């Protein structure tokens, strides 16, 4: 994504450096403090609380989207909120990820029949990890973050595989 501008996308220099940077990225996932509804209590408050303590994994909150890596969509997104979610996602710097937390953010949840509710936040922004539950327990959110780390890890592995394939 970056050194590739100098050395090309399949260069070893690029892939190796991305391997290092992906390691850094997945261990320093700062999320944007943006609680919409019920899930915010479980996913953001309890999560940073003494019992679950996401800080252990380097998952830490920043209030401004300019300094965030992950957006946790924690709650029902309706048509009025959709613009805000999209704007905040756009304002985050690359590389960035989205976690759809709970049934509402994934599909609309218990409110999916109401015409004002958006059927899942993936209609607005690309979602990387879906966490089921209404609301998911903080442990589930933790597991979701571990899955996100796995996903970041896979990026470089896929690049390596593509390189050996092209050779």
């Amino acid at each position: 994504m970056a050194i590739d501008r100098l050395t090309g996308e399949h260069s070893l220099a690029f892939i190796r450096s991305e391997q290092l940077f992906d390691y850094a990225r997945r261990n320093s996932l700062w999320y944007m403090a943006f609680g919409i509804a019920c899930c915010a209590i479980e996913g953001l408050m309890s999560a940073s609380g003494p019992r679950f303590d996401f800080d252990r994994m380097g998952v830490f909150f920043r209030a401004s989207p300019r300094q965030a890596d992950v957006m946790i969509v924690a709650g029902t997104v309706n048509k009025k909120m959709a613009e805000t979610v999209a704007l905040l996602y756009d304002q985050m710097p690359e590389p960035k990820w989205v976690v759809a937390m709970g049934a509402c953010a994934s599909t609309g949840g218990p409110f999916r029949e109401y015409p004002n509710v958006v059927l899942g936040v993936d209609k607005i922004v690309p979602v990387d990890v879906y966490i089921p539950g209404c609301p998911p327990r903080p442990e589930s959110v933790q597991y979701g973050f571990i899955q996100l780390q796995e996903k970041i890890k896979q990026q470089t592995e896929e690049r390596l595989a593509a390189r050996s394939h092209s050779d």
Partner: protein
Amino acid sequence: MTDPRDIVSGVGMLSEGTHFVGEPPAGIRRVPTGVDGLSTEHLVINMGPQHPSTHGVLRLLIEVDGEEVVAVEVTLGYLHRGIEKLAEHRRYDQLGTLMDRGDYVSGMHGEQAVALAVERLMEIEIPRKAAWIRTMVAELTRIASHLVWFGTFGLDTGAMGQFLYAMRDREAAVEILEAISGARMMFNYIRPGGVVDDLPAGIDQKILAFCDGFETYLDEHHALLGGNEIFQGRVRGIGVIDRDTALAFALTGPNLRASGLGFDLRRDRPYDAYPELEFDIPVGTTGDSWDRYMVRMEEMRQANRMVRQCIEGMPDGDFKAKVPRVLRPPEGEIYAATESSRGETGVHIVSDGSDTPYRFHYRSGSLHAMQALEEILPGHLLADVVMIVGSTDVMLGEVDR
């Protein structure tokens, strides 16, 4: 008697010319400051929907002069998800799930309101034990809910520690509620006719241990935050809602009691086991943020006392009355309300005799507190806005519904 029009002064100050989401309002207005040629321009700031301390998705359009707030307009609807509409398509025993997600921090009170309304409409007499269990879980929920308020209020002032200590105690309360109902937040435990299930074996020891611990923890919490000079300096005399304003805006719950009017549904419209319990109702004097803080702290203490009484005097018997599998209340209309953590949580049901309500209305304490905000915020500093919003403890889930 005060004319309400004297109380309401700032309404619509920001709304010269119509503006909707995305469209800028009139913007800057020049206001002469008395010095020739020197004038201050007002700044219009968007606070929210994404802001660390608007407690969800509240959006305040604030017009400031320097840091002083001149006018405020509250914009709602970022969490409007149609609880009232969807309830018209749910059976009566399913309404609790929606109410849980309305005021999501104190779900039990919403469920209780629905259950009371349906029981009154169908004239169901619930067993004594069911009433006692309901009262106990409602008070436990009140503790859990006020702890969230306490933690975020501390966070609003910049005291991180209080938030984390409050979360620790909340985890303990939530664990008990989970053992009873099976869920941490969305309980769906109180149903028309009683409760879903009996108390699990051995839970009374756990609850008593929690009550003992919480008594001392509460003193610690109060000493840490309320005993701090800086904190007192920030909340005393800030955001005063006097009695007339509180009545005019129909505030209920702790916000009303802080203004000096001791109206409490648990005592004045008794329901479930409250007539048999002993508890005090804290009442404030001036209605400033400090009074609201003190009222809520004392409510936690009283709630703890009630939980203890409930456990000690828990009667034997059934936990659920004999109710038909599908509830079909007779045609009619009913209003039932419970004293929730944020005020009067009322349920207004219009029944047409079928198994779903014809019209379901959810009256929430937070919406009315929200209206009062527009009125009391002007004149304060920007930093106070956060404190006042925090002290009224609005929950956007039940504002937008």
